[in-house]
């Protein structure tokens, strides 16, 4: 996976004229991100917040601003097309915040993104942040992050914030934080992110946060066993207290079989050499132990 999230990253926001898109475009800009344009079909030629040019299409936005990354807030029924438009226009990294995208659409889009070599993060994700480079492409509250060497990956938004809040309050900074999204099919997997962290020079240790449901965590564990990783990993699985057969908000978070249970995931990760975080209140405490 290629991922360029730094002060040179040029971002366009699809859906910038909507309530959420507009709010977060400005918050990203405030944090330091280069928001070079917005896209809303039919509103081309306008200026958002008197400063950010709005275009009718992604290709116009890209040709004019030289953007390489797109951040998507388009409502769910139209989000699949927004992703495809970005891919078709030659955008390198597409980050889709929108939740509620039909899974059957994602089956196809995942394949298209992969075939075109585009990094797609999400949908239904909080985005990506690089505190050192002051680059935030997503909806996370910027002020809780601090620069450092811990890479954080999670399916969930607010749970990522929880982890980061604990880390920063103990003076442990982050290299890059990625929320991959809670849907059954997402563009970037745990494995993609772990692979990236393992070869990323800035990242020296990793916080991995998984959830009940599916077998994505076990596959990440298998991957870790297959590579030569020397960076310590602290792993948390949430949802141990969730009942079987109930969908816990995230479409993927439902225990349907043995593999979906927290216990099975914890055992796999332990087996792969991860340090298990005993419960959600002890994320930073566990990281502190493994980095010292």
């Amino acid at each position, binding site marked *: 996976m290629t991922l360029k999230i730094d002060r040179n990253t040029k971002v366009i926001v699809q859906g910038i004229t909507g*309530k959420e898109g507009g709010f977060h475009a400005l918050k990203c800009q405030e944090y330091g991100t280069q928001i070079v344009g917005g896209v809303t079909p039919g509103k081309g030629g306008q200026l958002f917040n008197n400063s950010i040019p709005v275009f009718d299409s992604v290709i116009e936005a890209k040709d004019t601003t030289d953007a390489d990354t797109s951040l998507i807030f388009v409502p769910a029924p139209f989000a699949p097309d927004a992703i495809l438009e970005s891919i078709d226009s030659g955008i390198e990294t597409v980050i889709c915040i929108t939740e509620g995208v039909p899974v059957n659409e994602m089956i196809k889009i995942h394949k298209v993104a992969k075939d075109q070599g585009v990094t797609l993060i999400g949908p239904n994700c909080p985005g990506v942040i690089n505190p050192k480079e002051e680059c935030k492409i997503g909806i996370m509250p910027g002020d809780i992050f601090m620069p450092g060497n811990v890479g954080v990956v999670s399916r969930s938004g607010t*749970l990522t914030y929880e982890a980061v809040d604990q880390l920063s309050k103990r003076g442990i900074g982050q290299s890059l934080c990625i929320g991959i999204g*809670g849907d059954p099919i997402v563009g970037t997997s745990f494995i993609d992110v772990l692979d990236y962290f393992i070869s990323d020079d800035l990242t020296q240790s990793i916080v991995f946060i998984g959830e009940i449901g599916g077998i994505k965590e076990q596959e990440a564990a298998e991957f870790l066993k297959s590579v030569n990783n020397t960076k310590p990993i602290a792993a948390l699985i949430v949802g141990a207290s969730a009942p079987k057969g109930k969908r816990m908000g995230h479409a993927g978070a439902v225990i349907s079989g043995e593999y979906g249970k927290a216990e099975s995931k914890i055992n796999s990760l332990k087996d792969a050499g991860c340090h298990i975080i005993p419960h959600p209140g002890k994320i930073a405490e566990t990281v502190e132990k493994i980095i010292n």
Partner: protein
Amino acid sequence: MKIHEYQAKELFKDYDINIPEGYVGENKDEILKIYKSFDDDVVLKVQVHAGGRGKAGGVRLVKSEQEVIEFAEKFFGKGFQTIQTENEEFIVNKILVEKVSDINSESYIALLVDGSNQSLNIIASPEGGMDIEEVASKSPENILTLPINVITGPTDFQIRKINNFLRYEQTYYGELRKIIRNLYELYLSKDCSLIEINPLIQNKSGEILALDAKITFDEDALFRQNLIKELRDLSQENPVEIETAKLGIKYIQLQGSVGCIVNGAGLAMATMDVINVSGLKPANFLDIGGGADENKVSEAMLAVLSDQNVEVVLINLFGGILRCDVAARGFLSALDKYNKKAPELIIRMLGTNSDKGKEILSASKYNISFADNLNEISKILITKR
């Protein structure tokens, strides 16, 4: 979204997948009339949104009018539980009356999205009629999983492989091919999230029939599935969950005493885990969801308070677009509306305007403890055991 077996079978019929002849009745007289219209024994099946009906007595072969009457009187209008329903009861409003099938072999077929290979898969097993999870753990070699390429759909060589795996004779290939391709068509065109046939049978006259049928639909795709939306049976769902879902709040009632209100599904699960390690049980899962305002927050609180088992309410919020002062006012307006004694509150707020939010709450007349982090929440909870 779940539907009943009889509704799933009607969809199968539309897609040319064979099912046993059967009709659904809503009361004793109706199913008795249907029974009389068959000149043979029938199977009666309660229609509820729960698995494990057979083991719980909800599926019975009947040979006389008397047995039909007994079955109807036992189940119609009553709550039904199985080992899979976790103390929840499902009311029986419909019973399916079906012609008995003579069974030569039973197998299992399912279509579902598996996030691990990021695609739609066909799952097949020659061990039909059993709990598939049991098969998976006892004899995993009897389960075949094949990913379907979205460009081609299920291919002939894949279907030949399934035909062999199910130990079907070569002569069944054509029929199985039709079934699998039609299931795939149904899956995509109706935005299913699961189609499961357990068992898929071969009868003595050589036909392949879906003896049972389970279909669930992707709720995120219902906006474009008007016909499917009409199949929803609200009598099978928790009324508070239905009301909160209309506002975009994800609420699931559980059995414990600590109500919780959280934003974000992951943090909501983490919060439930903290309640658990503190020696208590969560009364619910609740994710307020995006775009929350004062009214939505207030409705979330009222939903939690509607559960009689709730003794403590735990609020864990990361303010973003949702400002904590707005949330605080929402919580207070719900408590003011609540006509019983308000339970004790434990509140943790971070992010946009959290200081202002805490100020508003501490100036209120309610009994509130504040926590700065999950460990502090846990410490307070431990004192409530």
